[in-house]
């Protein structure tokens, strides 16, 4: 189909069409943002803030607390994501099942590598307290960057926003690991958790 030579489209009509296209595109992106990313980013941002802050100030409780927080986070993610099965826009995560399985696989491999790399027997023999600060920092940086790797990969499909979010938090993790000293965990709560929360709020309010 080509331009109708009898009734050509005027520049004014073309501008009106382009404006309508932009309006619709904006509306669509907002729908996507509302339905998907915002609640999950904010949820895990809050978990990071609580978990890392507690690790900083109550280190003896850190291990148990993180297990509880992660379980609560996974359960909440499933509950929040449940409606996605009937979501008005599907396939954003290639179908929720595929994305969920990909994240589960990533976290499973992360746990496996942590178990292989972390000298649990040595820790147990030497006493956890002697090694906790060092290993805790390494494990915190390791697990955080594993999660951010997931965002980076997700960003390759969902858009650069998630890719840059993953890279940003990876960078802040490394900065904190090498330069934050004894305040590394607090740094992670503020920069890592805060970044996730800000990202969720940003998408909700400003994604255009």
């Amino acid at each position, binding site marked *: *189909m*080509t*331009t*109708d030579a009898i009734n050509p*489209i*005027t*520049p004014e009509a*073309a*501008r009106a*069409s*382009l404006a*309508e*296209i932009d309006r*619709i*595109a904006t*509306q*669509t*992106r907002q*729908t*996507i943002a509302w339905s998907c990313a915002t609640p999950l980013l904010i949820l895990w941002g809050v978990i990071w803030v609580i978990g890392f802050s507690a690790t900083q100030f109550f280190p003896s409780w850190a291990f148990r607390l993180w297990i509880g927080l992660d379980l609560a986070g996974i359960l909440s993610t499933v509950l929040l994501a449940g409606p996605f*099965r*009937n*979501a*008005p*826009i*599907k*396939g*954003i995560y*290639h179908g929720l099942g595929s994305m969920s399985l990909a994240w589960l696989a990533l976290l499973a491999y992360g746990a496996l590598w942590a178990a292989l790399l972390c000298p649990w027997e040595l820790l147990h023999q030497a006493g956890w307290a002697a090694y906790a600060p060092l290993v805790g920092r390494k494990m915190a940086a390791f697990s955080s960057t594993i999660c951010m790797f997931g965002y980076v990969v997700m960003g390759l*499909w*969902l*858009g650069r926003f998630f890719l840059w979010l993953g890279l940003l938090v990876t960078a802040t993790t490394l900065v904190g690991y090498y330069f934050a000293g004894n305040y590394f965990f607090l740094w992670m709560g503020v920069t890592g958790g805060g970044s996730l929360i800000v990202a969720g709020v940003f998408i909700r309010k400003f994604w255009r």
Partner: protein
Amino acid sequence: MPEIDLVIHTPARLRIMSTLSALPPRAQIDFRTLGKSLELTDGNLGAHLQTLEEAGYIKVEKTFVDRKPRTHVAASAKGHARFAEHVAALREICRV
């Protein structure tokens, strides 16, 4: 020289293709949601989708979720390409 596509240029179909083109790759939108967001009745939307599907610009997938029929729509590769060309043609007209 990009060309205006009169299949797409009809106001309702232009809005449909604008919505579908704004979806992330591999995403599909539910029929009811599409109609609601564009303020089109089911019959009206269905007719326009049929035209777009016959032109090869969209893919329509019918499935069952909890035993209820669901229809999801996405732009095809041809539809994305023709829509992009249509937008380029509109921009050319604006430059005149």
